[in-house]
């Protein structure tokens, strides 16, 4: 009897575990999720519809999540790591590489984090992510949650749209602000400066002599000691950077930032 009871309990536990796992796996975040009610229902609906429409248009997920304390939503104490964890756990992103961007707002200590994945890491590179932050931080400081999220959605949409227009037919993204050209002209400027310096040196033909090589009697040079002695060896190892590491593996590339508002 006891054994049967234990079997039933074990079976129930297995069922509950299986059910939980299934529910978790199937759990979906909306494009805009407010776990603590800083947005009204109508604001939430409007923002959610807006984010969904724009994300679908671009095939690029734009997400916003408002929580009370991010520490309850992940294993890490770092908000960026938690944002990354949520993005992965809830299978956010669109397309083959799960392209997208998530804004995580934590009201407890007024923390925020942006996590951009795959193509998002190229759109929101370190130099560009500041623009995205600036778009909503002003509203957040005024506790204008709806305005902040709306601004974030539109800015993320515009930046992604612009970035997508820079993707060539071969699918390779050329970052806005052609660094190749900038680098070419930078190198050209350095070479030009060296050339001008050499030409400028030609204007100066006067200098003190610090050697007297012309006055050495060639038949009066005698070496009394020539000794080359090996002392030791040093070995240095340098990892070879492979270009493909960063260029092709979009699924694992990400960028982001975090801070307080």
């Amino acid at each position: 009897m006891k054994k049967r009871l234990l079997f039933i309990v074990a079976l129930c536990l297995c069922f509950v575990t299986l059910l939980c796992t299934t529910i978790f796996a199937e759990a979906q975040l909306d494009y805009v999720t407010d776990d603590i009610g800083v947005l009204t229902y109508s604001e939430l609906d409007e923002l959610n519809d807006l984010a969904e429409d724009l994300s679908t248009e671009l095939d690029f997920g734009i997400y916003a999540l408002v929580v009370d304390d991010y520490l309850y939503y992940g294993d890490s104490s770092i908000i960026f790591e938690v944002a990354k964890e949520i993005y992965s756990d809830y299978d956010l992103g669109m397309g083959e590489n799960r392209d997208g961007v998530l804004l995580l707002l934590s009201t407890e200590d007024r923390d925020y984090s942006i996590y951009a994945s795959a193509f998002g890491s190229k759109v929101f590179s370190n130099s560009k992510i500041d623009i995205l932050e600036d778009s909503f931080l002003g509203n957040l400081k005024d506790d204008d949650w709806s305005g902040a999220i709306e601004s974030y959605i539109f800015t993320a949409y515009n930046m992604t749209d612009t970035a997508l227009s820079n993707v060539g037919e071969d699918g390779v993204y050329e970052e806005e602000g052609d660094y190749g050209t900038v680098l070419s002209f930078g190198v050209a400027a350095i070479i030009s400066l060296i050339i001008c310096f050499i030409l400028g040196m030609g204007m100066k033909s006067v200098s003190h002599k610090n050697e007297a090589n012309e006055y050495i009697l060639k038949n009066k040079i005698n070496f009394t000691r020539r000794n080359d002695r090996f002392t030791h060896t040093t070995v240095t190892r340098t990892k070879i950077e492979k270009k493909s590491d960063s260029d092709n593996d979009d699924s694992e590339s990400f960028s982001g930032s975090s801070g307080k508002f």
Partner: protein
Amino acid sequence: MSEQITNYQCPSCTGPLHFNGGSGKLECEYCNAVFEVAEIEAIYAEKERTATENFNAAENSNNSDTSQFSQDWGTDMKAYSCPSCGAELICDSTTAATSCPYCGNPTVVPGQFGGALKPDYIIPFKLDKARAKNALKEHYKGKIFLPSSFSKENHIEEIKGVYVPFWLFDAKADARCVFHGTQSITTTEGDYRVTTTSHFDIRRDGTLEFEKIPTDASSKMPDDIMDSIEPFNYDELKTFSTAYLSGYLADKYDVSAEESTSRADARCRQSAIDTMRNDIHGYETLIEESADVSLVSGDVSYALFPVWMLATKWQDKTYLFAMNGQTGKLVGNLPIDKGRFFAVFAIITVVLGIILSLTGIFA
């Protein structure tokens, strides 16, 4: 004011004689007669001896005309009487050859080079004034940053052939140098580039000898300019004779050999180290760790070398050029047109930038 100076006159017509660098002879401007240096030396030997004695007597008795200038002109001036026209020549105390500003005749003060002050050697002028002017024009050519107004507007203010006094130092150097050298081999192991560097302690000891390192002995001449017109061809060194000075300016030394030694020593030391270094081959890097150079001074000679000095003025600034009167090497710093500099910089940058962008090297 007894005669302390000599002017070489043509034995045929008594016209002034000038030393011609091209022919290596003394020539008369009036009757075009040409004389060997030795020939004139023999004729004027007695006159020179008398002039030297008069000069020394004036120096020793302190009754020379220097005293009369000590009040008005300072003790650095001397006064002589031109043997041709009798005009009073006021010169620096070191002047050994000059021209009379009134009659234009070349004059020489043999007393400046008498006794112990007599130079051992002289390299006679080989190139004339016209060559110096041409050399200056050539010096301007191909200088992209030279302001166009500099070559167009500036004029040669002064051009003079000067025999500059030099000390010629002989020395022996004993060098002991230690260098650190490395040789590297790079291989690939998996994802790593492995560089194995072998380090060596390299020693070179040796001796070397220097002959006649020139150091200018005139405080009037900028040292860097005199250094820059080197080298002189010592194959054409001649025993000193005042006859070579006729038609040129000349000064006796006013910087002693002792004062000049340090400059020659520094050059010897560097050359000794360079010689040791140049004997080492087969290393990718070579760093001097220590160098101990002992110098033993040898003979010191006194010589006069030919230099054309050219001074030009542009925008109220004087530019000094010097040409080696034997080899024709001309030196002198030129001004840089900042506008041209930045224009050239911009053009090269834009053209090169476009080429690099098109090639996509940095894409």
